[in-house]
């Protein structure tokens, strides 16, 4: 029974620490309504900006905001767990940037059953899957990603005089946001016969994968002069791979999201352009929508957020 004594000492010490941390938060004792914002990951500046916009709005509206995310952008199941747990916490509104447009639908159904309104932010939840499951979303707040992809494509066509070998870094296969950007980009390029996509590979929205994939593309297609990445995180990975190959300046890289690092790279002429969404505005609008839902007001089904090209 000596062993148990050790356990008696160590385990409570650890748990008391957890308990103190837990009690200090005091979230549950506050009378403010709680709204949850679940994003794809917090390893991406885009979602950190969205969180900042949402927090500012929540503070001014007297809303308790809980922000959670899985560790990895591709972890659909973990995001579903987070949503389930927040439903148990009885948040008033769920603001959700789904990791999987179809895969999150079972979680949306659970929220519906608990009478918690769901607002999709940035990434749409698949309409056909929603309809098939009888699930509903109160509103969608986000940019038209396809339009942004077209802008990126049009920029490259104009910049390179309508003739270039093009490489593309795709996002997570089958995920709506990146797919829409890609669709728009391909539409823009289809109009220019001289623009040929010679390589199109997924780099899963991650910087290190984009670096490796770009290195490989440069080996197999040294003649490329343009590269489109479905987000800035990948674009910046590509910029580094291009620099490592001493090709900076000869390949025009276009990203998406207009993160600070990307804006800096454009100013330093290491990158050609990026499509600016406004994640801060998305976060702000999402929380305002939540507060209107809490008050029982009607909200528009679609709330577009403006998009622009930074070059």
């Amino acid at each position, binding site marked *: 029974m000596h*062993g148990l004594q050790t*356990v008696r000492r*160590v385990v409570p010490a650890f*748990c008391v620490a957890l308990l103190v941390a*837990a009690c200090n938060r005091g979230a549950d004792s506050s009378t403010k309504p709680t709204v949850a914002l679940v994003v794809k990951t917090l390893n991406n500046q885009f979602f950190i900006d969205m969180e900042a916009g949402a927090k500012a709005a929540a503070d001014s509206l007297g809303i308790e905001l809980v922000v959670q995310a899985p560790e990895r952008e591709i972890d*659909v199941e973990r995001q*579903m767990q987070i949503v389930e747990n927040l439903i148990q916490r009885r948040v008033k509104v769920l603001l959700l940037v789904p990791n999987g447009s179809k895969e999150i639908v079972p979680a949306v159904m659970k929220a519906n059953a608990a009478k918690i309104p769901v607002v999709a932010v940035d990434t749409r939840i698949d309409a056909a899957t929603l309809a098939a499951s009888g699930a509903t979303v109160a509103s969608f707040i986000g940019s038209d990603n396809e339009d942004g992809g077209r802008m990126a494509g049009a920029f490259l066509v104009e910049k390179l005089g309508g003739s270039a070998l093009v490489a593309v870094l795709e996002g997570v296969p089958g995920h709506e946001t990146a797919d829409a950007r890609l669709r728009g980009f391909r539409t823009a390029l289809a109009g220019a016969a001289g623009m040929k996509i010679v390589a199109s590979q997924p780099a899963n929205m991650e910087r290190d994968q984009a670096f490796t994939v770009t290195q490989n593309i440069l080996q197999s297609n040294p003649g490329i002069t343009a590269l489109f990445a479905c987000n800035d995180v990948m674009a910046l990975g590509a910029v580094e791979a291009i620099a490592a190959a001493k090709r900076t300046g000869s390949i025009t890289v276009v990203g998406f999201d207009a993160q600070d690092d990307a804006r800096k790279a454009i100013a330093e002429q290491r990158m050609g352009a990026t499509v600016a969404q406004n994640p801060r505005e998305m976060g702000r609008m999402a929380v305002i929508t939540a507060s209107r839902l809490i008050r029982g007001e009607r909200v528009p089904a679609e709330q577009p957020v403006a998009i622009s090209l930074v070059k």
Partner: protein
Amino acid sequence: MISGRTMRRIIAGREAGTVLGLLVLCVALWIATPYFATAANLSNVAEQSAIVGVIAIGMTFVILTGGIDLSVGSLVALTGVVIGGALQRGWPVAGAVGAGLMAGIGAGAVNGLMITRGGLPPFIATLGMMSVARGGALLLSDGRPISGFPDPLRVIATGNLLGVPAPVVLMLVLYFVAYLVLTRTVVGRYMYAIGGNEEATVLAGVDVRFHKTVVYAVSGLSAAVCAVLLVARLDSAQPIAGIGYELDAIAAVVIGGTSLLGGSGSVIGTLIGALIMSVLRNGLNLLGVSSYLQQVAIGTVIIVAVLIDMALRRRIQRSTR
């Protein structure tokens, strides 16, 4: 399911630290948030633990024999895609699930053969399989998730038996079977013997190579069962599913008190280990703790659990010396 005598043995024995850890964690959360100790939330936690809980069964067998299986996360994706692809081609649910389970057993057996016949260290053989299976899943599915499955499959995730969610029922049944195999059968004794002293077990006339191959096949099978649960839960088979699950499963086994050196441990400990991880994640979500801090907390629990286990082990060794 577990008799009073067994219950007493667990409390007084090896799993004491783990059980106590789980209890203290639950009490702490019960005090800290009114949302934790509700029937709906506890059922929710149990359901969430099923995913990693099921793979951790196979991982317990592997680790008991002194091995490791890094391929299970990728096998979840591969077998999931096999199931999804078969359903998409119009196979009946039973046939598709059967194909997925066979694929899991097959890939696991290949791991086992590489280790026992090829002489590869388990770390290397399963590391290779991790990549092969991931690539295979991406190739089979063309990199895209396969979605929208018939109701009989969805029931595995959405159904319940007397109010207990179906995934939990499945997990508990599998743990019970594994518990019986390890404690009441000769094969179970062999697992401990192989992990304790492989050479002595060979000299005792046990076909160690065969039994070790079976262990990896069982691990592949648990990954496939996990894939069934995951596909049913998300209504989607994803080639990028299961990344990092091998580490979650290893963590559950280790928190449950099974030695990474092999030869000692139990599946009951693993079940409690898996529950601790789910309860912790659930609690941190309920408390609204930041995602960054959550990772720190989970890592800390793994380290503390192993520290306690090592302290216990030293005491036991000293008292038996």
